[in-house]
């Protein structure tokens, strides 16, 4: 295979203890704000920072020299980076940037890193800033899915988890993916099929590499630019050798990768994320000489379509082409937020609370108070002197009350007050796509059946175990002869017996 000599294991599959140069890393700013960046010891874009390559985020600037060599998962402080004086050609005014909404700003943060500028600068060590930090994480398919640049509809984690599960993708599976799109499924699939690299095991080839089935993802994408971009990502992420991407329309041209005849793929799992998956099915039959399917295994298939009409056409086609166990499901997933809800009059004037009465008692107390006040007010009109003699608690002004509440706040442990509640995230995905699953059993001819019948003849009368009680020893002996020298079966059989 065409794996370059400078082979480097993927940070998705083997992340060492520390962040290394040239590895993809994720800067975790907050839950839904993750910035992928490739760690560089030098400023490959020559942006003119004296600290070398720098990732600028809204929580501070992070020279890569402060990230490389740090254990994964570390909280890293921001550094004081002079972002201003290195000249800003092609860079929009700073004031403008501030006003833009936060999400696009995150994109800009990355873009800022990539602006090119030819400036000669002296290198200097990074200086810690007083505030700001990020967490440095190695990439995983889940994080990548949350942070990847969208090119098409993304196959999200709950969907791809279930799909890989139903496709029975395990290490050593050869998976065909058509419609690679943004590459989220590609990354998850690569992790699932991975069971080593073909050429790194040459050292201990003695026992290991005899016909081992290497897990592989054969990926197809019919959009040229998307294919190009994904190819770059695959290389950058160290997944070449595991993922093989081809720019091709599989419906028209079949599942033939660039350098390999389709008949050599021997795939046993297929994922189709195509607009018209039924058109690709004609290239997925066993009969064709250029069939990419493994002749000796059952084939698991999944198609991913948003519309019910697509599903119906796909299933109709599947039924005519020998696929069995056809099933259609959809996955609904959502996140759940946990928070503390504080309700009550004691919260009056505070933020993020509900300051209406927390109970009937509180309501009555409040009503009494109001009642008392209005009585005083009414009395004021009639017999003004009496009020002065009877000052009630209701006399504390609202302003005073709010002030008191605010002062009390200092000593309160808000994180354990109120009621612990949970609820669904504000916006849930009610529909992603319909998943159609099907299985194509291994081809089984009349001759195969005859052979099997010869090997396992139907038993009309076998006396073996009918001869009354037999000793343990005899049983073991019997098991031995039956297992025919196969040690493992023998143990099993004797255990059964």
């Amino acid at each position: 295979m065409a794996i370059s000599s400078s082979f480097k294991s993927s940070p998705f599959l083997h992340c060492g203890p520390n962040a290394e140069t040239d590895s993809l890393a994720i800067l975790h700013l907050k839950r839904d704000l993750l910035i992928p960046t490739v760690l560089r010891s030098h400023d490959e874009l020559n942006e003119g920072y004296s600290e070398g390559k720098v990732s600028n985020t809204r929580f501070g600037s992070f020279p890569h020299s402060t990230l490389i060599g740090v254990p994964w998962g570390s909280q890293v402080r921001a550094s004081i980076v002079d972002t201003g004086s290195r000249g800003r050609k092609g860079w929009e005014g700073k004031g403008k940037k501030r006003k833009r909404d936060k999400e696009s700003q995150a994109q800009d943060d990355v873009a800022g890193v990539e602006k090119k500028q030819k400036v000669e600068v002296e290198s200097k060590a990074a200086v810690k800033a007083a505030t700001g930090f990020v967490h440095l994480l190695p990439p995983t398919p889940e994080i990548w899915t949350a942070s990847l640049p969208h090119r098409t509809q993304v196959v999200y984690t709950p969907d791809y988890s279930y799909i890989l599960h139903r496709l029975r993708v395990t290490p050593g599976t050869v998976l065909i993916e058509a419609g690679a799109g943004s590459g989220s499924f590609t990354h998850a699939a690569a992790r699932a099929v991975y069971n080593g690299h073909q050429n790194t095991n040459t050292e201990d080839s003695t026992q290991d590499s005899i016909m081992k089935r290497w897990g592989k993802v054969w990926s197809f994408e019919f959009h040229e630019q998307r294919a190009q971009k994904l190819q770059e990502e695959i290389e950058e992420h160290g997944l070449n050798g595991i993922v093989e991407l081809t720019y091709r329309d599989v419906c028209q041209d079949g599942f033939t990768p660039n350098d390999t005849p389709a008949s050599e793929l021997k795939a046993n799992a297929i994922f189709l994320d195509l607009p018209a998956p039924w058109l690709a099915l004609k290239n997925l039959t066993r009969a064709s000489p250029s069939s990419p399917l493994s002749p000796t295994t059952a084939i698991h298939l999944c198609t991913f379509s948003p519309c019910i009409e697509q599903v119906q056409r796909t299933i109709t086609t599947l039924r005519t082409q020998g696929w069995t166990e056809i099933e259609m499901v959809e996955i609904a997933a959502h996140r759940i937020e946990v928070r503390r809800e504080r309700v009550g009059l004691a919260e009056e004037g505070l933020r993020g609370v509900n300051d209406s009465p927390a109970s009937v008692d509180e309501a009555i107390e409040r009503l009494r108070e109001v009642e008392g006040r209005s009585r005083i007010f009414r009395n004021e009109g009639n017999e003004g002197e009496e009020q002065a003699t009877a000052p009630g608690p209701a006399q504390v002004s609202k302003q005073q009350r709010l002030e008191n509440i605010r002062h009390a706040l200092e000593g309160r442990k808000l994180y354990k007050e109120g009621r612990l509640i949970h609820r669904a995230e504000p916006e849930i995905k009610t529909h992603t796509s319909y998943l159609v699953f099907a299985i194509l059993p291994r081809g089984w001819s009349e001759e195969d059946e005859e052979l099997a019948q010869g090997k396992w003849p139907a038993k009309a009368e076998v006396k073996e175990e009918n001869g009354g009680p037999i000793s343990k020893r005899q049983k073991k002996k019997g098991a031995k002869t039956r297992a025919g020298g196969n040690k493992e079966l023998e143990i099993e059989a004797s255990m059964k017996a």
Partner: protein
Amino acid sequence: MKQELVQPHAYVALRLPSDSTIVVQVLPNTVSTISIGKYGAFQANNILGRPYHLTFEIRDSVTSDGKAQSGLRIVPAAELYADIKDEAPETPTEAEAGNLGASGDGVEYEIVGQNGEVVMRTNRRITDDPSSQIMTMDEIEALKAQSTGSGKELIAKILESHSALDQKTAFALAKYTLRKTKKYLRRFTVVPLDVATLARWILTDKEPMKIMELREEILSMIGSWSNVHCTPSVSTPSLDGEGMQTKGGRWLVVDETAGLLVAYMAEKMAILHPPDHNGEEAEGKVLSKQETDAVNGDDSIGNPATKHVVAPPPDHLRPRKTSGPGTTNTITLIHANAQPNLSLLKYFHFDAFNPSISHPLESHLKTLSWLQLLSPEDDMGCAEPEIVSEETIQSWKSGKRSNHFRKRRRWERINFVVDETRAGEFDGLIVASIMNPVSILRHTVPLLRGAAQVVVYSPTIEPLVELSDYYSTGRRTAFVTNPPDFNSMPTEDFPLNPTLLLAPTIQTARSRSWQVLPGRTHPLMTGRGGSEGYVFTATRVLPAEGKIEARGTFKRRKVDDGVTRNSSRQENAASGDSGSMEIDAS
């Protein structure tokens, strides 16, 4: 390696027309048949050596000596869908309704076709009448006893004798046919018993409580979020020519689903199935025959008649150097009882008490109890057996000798596992336990390396809500601003160190199955209820030393609201979310 053909002694799942599943072990060359209830019985040899996913039909045949014997016929895929006319338009008309029951191989269900009016029939004129089926139960039973075929003729007869069949709408007729088919069609499909099938079978047909009602959707999500994957011990040649061993691939698990979770992880790590003898999928370690023999003799504790008489020299106590506890691609299981419950692993031919040396789990699965982990000095298994001089050993009888070596080996293994586990640096933690997750995470999170994934499954949400609360932004902020004395941890306010986990999230997923038939596509009417099942995920992080303060854009506040601002700022400081106020300031 996953097998493609049914192997002797394998456990297989049989999917019946009624959609239920049964699991049987296929014992070769036995007379006794495998019974699938009312559908009949068949011989194991009839499915042995055949591929999985085939559908068989039971038909009774008569052997040469006049004995009745059941045989199987493989049903071609085309025949499976013979009843479904995919060309039918979206709304079936009277004319097509007549065809719906027609089966592919010449058996007609004798349904009266109307003269082709394009009107959709409704059920307004049908009265509920149990007597519309003329055949009695006894008659059907008698027919069943006579029939030798697949059951198709029987179903045709039943349909024929339904007096109001012509009044049925296309939908009702299809449903009626399907119901009778499910009841009388003598077919079954052989499915490999992999982890997914096993999980589904236990959930729907066996005892869901045993696996904590763990649904497939959730199981697959656990797999993704825990990042569990195969880490083959690759020696990557480094520049200075020295082979560098890849470390890692160690997962910590607390599994109270009888081993389902362990099996699932093992499948993803390629250590669930023994390597094939023809070398395919040989996962790293193929033992030489000699070694296998040597150890088998020693290890079979339940088998006193061990033939391994010659004691190994004391300086070489472990003859199986290669298959000692593995250091990469391993699962470490912490169990609450004296012995782990891994009963479901028997379906993958692994016996935790007497592991076969050829099974990859033997060296890649390590177990220890909570006592061994947290207080090894109190555990008997961790106490070193006395070291005896070689002469003394030689003077012993063979039984005593092998007993001695077995004890020492067991102690060595336990000690190794305990030390290694206490040293930590695990790549991930998966928990599915009925114990309080707070108590589990308190002891296990510190054992994880930075960036390790933490996944906690719970059938109900309450334990996870409590757990999330202990990692809330507010609590973390309070912890960082005013850190408690680390020796007094856990405190009442901080049962867990809230700075050790990043982005705690609870999520759930549910699949909804659909019926897709021409003109009759809709979600299934019923599904499994019970526990919903939730997953808590988070990432282990290494907090920076010393005070750390967040920076970021804050929400605009009222200028005069000085106190509020201060308090919010305080809440905001050093939160794991890098100081964002948007999510959880309230």
